[in-house]
């Protein structure tokens, strides 16, 4: 194992009760690597990414994040370990989950002030700088409910970045957004990637994955069916399972009969649906 591996996942297994969501997943993520996790709905992508910061306990395997180890089964990790891992792993959620009782600025300031005892003034300066960097300086005093979805997600990304994480996790960060707001959030994530941030993101935006990701992991049927360099996996999938998935996702018009299981394709979720509707009519 090379020393620039930031996240090292070995034999990860997760069950909900008797139901196994996935089994024996291994993945190494190097510093500045961008990993896109794709796969059909219900494949366990969200569950997988949420194990990395231990929002879900897991049943077997282990995850090493910058020297801190989370071990599955048995006793849960110590509070100190969890804290260390979570402070170094930022996360943005599908539903943003901004704190509604705090302003955009308050949301971004909370983490450093409460976990690192950063003085309010410094936290404010940093939060303002982050909000400015995503074009939201003028929305700093706004409460979440006054922000558009795209703005909320950008604030949520700033909130995570304020902790100076080594890795950022994204779980379908644009799937709840209207199409016209997807671009602004993807631009923010692209910016992070170009600054060398390590990213693990679950996405249905295939075009974006192809463009930004170094590695693509295809999950289906409770396991990783294919994993490798983004272009190879997306353009020349070798596994039968990922081939069927990608066919459905990338070309929904060619396989309307079976598109039920597939999720909307990248960048054109609405467009494809309309096109399909048009076809039927």
């Amino acid at each position, binding site marked *: 194992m090379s020393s620039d591996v930031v996240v090292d996942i070995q034999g990860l297994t997760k069950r909900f009760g008797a139901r196994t969501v996935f089994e024996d997943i291994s993945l190494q993520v190097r510093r500045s690597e961008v990993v896109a996790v794709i796969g059909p709905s219900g494949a366990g992508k969200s569950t997988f990414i949420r194990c990395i910061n231990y929002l879900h306990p897991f049943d077997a395997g282990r995850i090493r994040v910058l020297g801190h180890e989370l071990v599955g089964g048995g006793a849960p990790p110590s509070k100190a370990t969890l804290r260390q891992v*979570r402070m170094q792993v*930022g996360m943005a959620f599908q539903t943003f989950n901004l704190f509604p009782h705090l302003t955009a600025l308050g949301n971004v300031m909370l983490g450093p002030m409460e976990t690192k005892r950063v003085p309010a003034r410094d936290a404010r300066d940093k939060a303002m700088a982050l909000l400015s960097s995503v074009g939201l300086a003028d929305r700093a005093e706004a409460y979440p409910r006054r922000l558009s979805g795209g703005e909320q997600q950008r604030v949520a990304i700033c909130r995570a970045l304020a902790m100076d994480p080594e890795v950022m996790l994204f779980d379908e960060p644009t799937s709840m957004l209207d199409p016209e707001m997807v671009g602004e959030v993807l631009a923010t994530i692209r910016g992070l990637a170009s600054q060398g941030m390590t990213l693990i993101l679950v996405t249905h935006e295939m075009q974006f994955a192809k463009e930004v990701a170094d590695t693509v992991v295809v999950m289906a049927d409770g396991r990783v069916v294919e994993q490798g360099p983004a272009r190879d996996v997306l353009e020349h999938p070798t596994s039968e399972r990922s081939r069927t998935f990608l066919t459905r996702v990338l070309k929904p018009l060619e396989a309307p009969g079976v598109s039920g299981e597939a999720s909307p394709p990248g960048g054109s979720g609405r467009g494809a649906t309309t096109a399909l509707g048009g076809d039927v009519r």
Partner: protein
Amino acid sequence: MRRLAARRAVRTKRGVMSTLQLWGQYLPQFLAGLVVSLQLTGAALVLALALGTLLVLARTGRIRVLAAIATGYVEVFRAVPVLVLLFTAYYSLAQMGLRLPGFWAGVVALGAFYGALYGEDMRSGLQSVDPGQREAAVALGLSNGTVMRRVVLPQAFLAFLPPGTNELSNLIKDTSLVLTIGVTDLMFQANAAAAATFQPMDMFLLAGLVYFAFYILLSRILARWELNVQRRRS
């Protein structure tokens, strides 16, 4: 006909005069009664909030037995009429050797009843907070205590306020029950004045007006407070 109407008007006028006179005469007693009612409300509120907090801690805590006891308590106490609790606190406890003064029996009974309601209100306030909020806070690396203090409780409080203030308005009105165990609250004074003057109509009307005035005043204040808290967060 016209004469009859005129005579009735005179009598009504005299009636109004004498009512106002009586009210003026008994107002000091009524106000003294109001003070007792307010003290009772305040003490019962403190007890109810403390008990409600304990109940919600027990119900959401890890110790099964405590959770079951707390759940049972809430189910039972909110189902029993306040008057039954009041007589229990005053007469039954005395029989068992615990003689509480009427005022404190009132505090215990009202506190026990409203504690059950508050426990339930607090619990639903906590439950109304989206689990995603906790997750987002935990993902930042915040400790459990901080998650509670900075993220969950501020939101739960907002959800708790409307039922909580509603409960308080009901508590004020329910304090009038302590008349039955001889506490000299507002209702007691009204009753005493009614007996002394043989004018129950006038006296209970005054009592009603005093409760009403206080109710309106308090609900206005609480409503404004609620609005302020909400406005500060939007």
